[in-house]
């Protein structure tokens, strides 16, 4: 019977144990720290666990070049998704705030004031509306 090379039992135990140690570390962080630093640390530890899973359990360490490329490219496109969405979410409305100091393009236009939606006392026009 032909025999295929396999990893030792220790290899499997070590992979599982190292992930569980990292999980325990994340729980320790959660128990002792608060705030954004704690979140960053627990998520960072999750990232390390993921690296162990991807490289050693899924075998990406020894995979063919193109299969690695697929994985990296997927993460890259996900990165684009996150970054460009945040480019909107994190700066939404900032132009109105920065406008006066940086651009002043809107200065001749004054925002509407008052509670009713009229312009200079005229009611809004309704031409072209369906009968």
């Amino acid at each position, binding site marked *: 019977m032909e025999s295929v090379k396999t990893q030792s039992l220790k290899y499997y135990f070590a992979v599982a144990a190292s992930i569980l140690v990292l999980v325990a570390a994340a729980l320790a962080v959660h128990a002792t720290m608060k705030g954004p630093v704690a979140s960053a640390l627990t998520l960072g530890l999750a990232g390390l666990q993921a690296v162990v899973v991807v490289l050693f359990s899924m075998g990406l360490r020894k995979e063919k070049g193109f299969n690695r490329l697929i994985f990296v490219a997927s993460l890259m496109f996900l990165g*684009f998704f996150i970054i460009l*969405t945040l*480019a909107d979410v994190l*700066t939404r409305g900032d132009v109105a705030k920065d406008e006066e100091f940086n651009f002043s393009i809107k200065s001749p236009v004054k925002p509407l004031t008052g509670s009713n939606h009229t312009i200079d006392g005229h009611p809004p026009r309704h031409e072209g509306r369906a009968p």
Partner: protein
Amino acid sequence: MSHHPDPNASYLESPAGFWPWLKSWLFTLDHKRIGILYFLGIVFSFGLGGFFAMVIRIELLRPHGLMLTHTQYNQVFTLHGAVMVFLFIIPSIPATIGNFVLPLLLGAKDVAFPRLNLLSFYIYLLGAVLAIFSLFSGAVDTGWTFYTPYSTQTGTAVISMTLAAFVLGFSSILTGINFIVTIHKLRAPGMGWFRIPLFAWATYATSIIQILATPVLAITLVLLILERTLGLGIFDPALGGDPVLFQHFFWFYSHPAVYIMILPAMGVMSEIITTHAQKDIFGYRFVAFSSIAIAVISFLVWGHHMYVSGQSLYANMIFSVLTLLVAIPSAIKVFNWVATLYGGHIHWRVPFLYAMGFIFLFLIGGFTGIILALLSLDVHLHDTYFIVAHFHYVMVGGTVMAFVGALHHWWPKMFGRMYSENWARVAFVLVFLGFNLTFFVQFILGSKGMPRRYHNYLDQFQPLHAFSTFGSWVLGLGFIVMTVYLIHSAFRGKKAPANPWESRTLEWQTASPPTTGNFEGTPTVTGGPYDYPRAGAAAGRNGRPE
């Protein structure tokens, strides 16, 4: 259960009797037959979407409507969009032409996963059934974009239609996986990466988008369904959600989806132009890599659909610059096709006419795209008929022209029959003319301020709207003529020779229609895909199987 056809008989040959015949089609694992099954589904969808288009145009003959209520009008344009996008254009070239031609182009016996391929078809069918069910259960009226918060509130059938799009997405992902693996693993001996016909490169780039963008549509639609049924509070501002975020999600898929539509069309162009001009492609690597470049850039530009959505102006600026980048690889392709023609032996056959139609209309579609990518102009033109005209020039003028061109180019191979060249020319003139009559005026309408998706409009727009409607009848007539002579050809047409266009690519080096096993033996490749003899040079310097 499965019937084992003779690998050396025509793939169209079926066992005698109706039920064995039907079974041999419904359980087929042959990529060519699956391509034909898709073809039937896609033609049906095109007819359905086209019917809705005609209803829209007739309704717009008069400024205050003709026969529909406001809600019905909203339903009709939504169904036109949803059917045409999800059921027709996205699967059109990859699923029919791709399934049929790709393994032949590569010299393979089949796609990598034939069972998965058949499964993709049935998933497509399930999606189509859901979409049609949705039609009759309170047709959706949100526009094919399903924008929140309206889509979480309207009383029409949002869930069944989004479920249909979700299911169709699965079909698309599985087809993409199948094609990438096929191109990687099943090329004929000697076919290195730079000897692959360019249609395969284009299919490859398309598949990348199908695999990596479609799952985002899937999660978007799942979240939309959950938001509508459970009220998660993620897209609905009343619950603390962010409706602009829905647009990010939707367009992260749907902009790349535009390239799922156009990239295979570009691949078709390269095949038609080289064959009918009997000339090697100008700048093979540039054409090949521009497909990949378009696929990658297409993931970075989705925000250009959201300039006036309340998206941050800084994001607008970033997206505007990134969008303009797409023009570069697109232009590389157009320049290279035109350069390919130089010094070629051009045969003005019908597929070539469609290729020229594509270049002309895609140019207009592309240039107006640049206009719309610019923030300052888009703010004025957004949500007007200018946009409608722009994307119809890209999708119909681009993809549909290429799809019809591909259909004529590979028709003799698919069915082993020739079509009437003269009737096909008549149909081309009607389609090309009708298309321009319908949509060119819409650029004018849009720039004069006619908003899209409106049921009623100002009286002053009536002449242009009527003109567009008349154009749509010419366009419709063209497709009717085409349907008639193609059906006639499929049953009564003259028998086609193996290689009527004297093409060099592998699919023409086997019988028309091909045998079930595709090739006798495995073809070996010793040269590029387009090694046409140059004027004056000796013919036949590559060793292809005859």
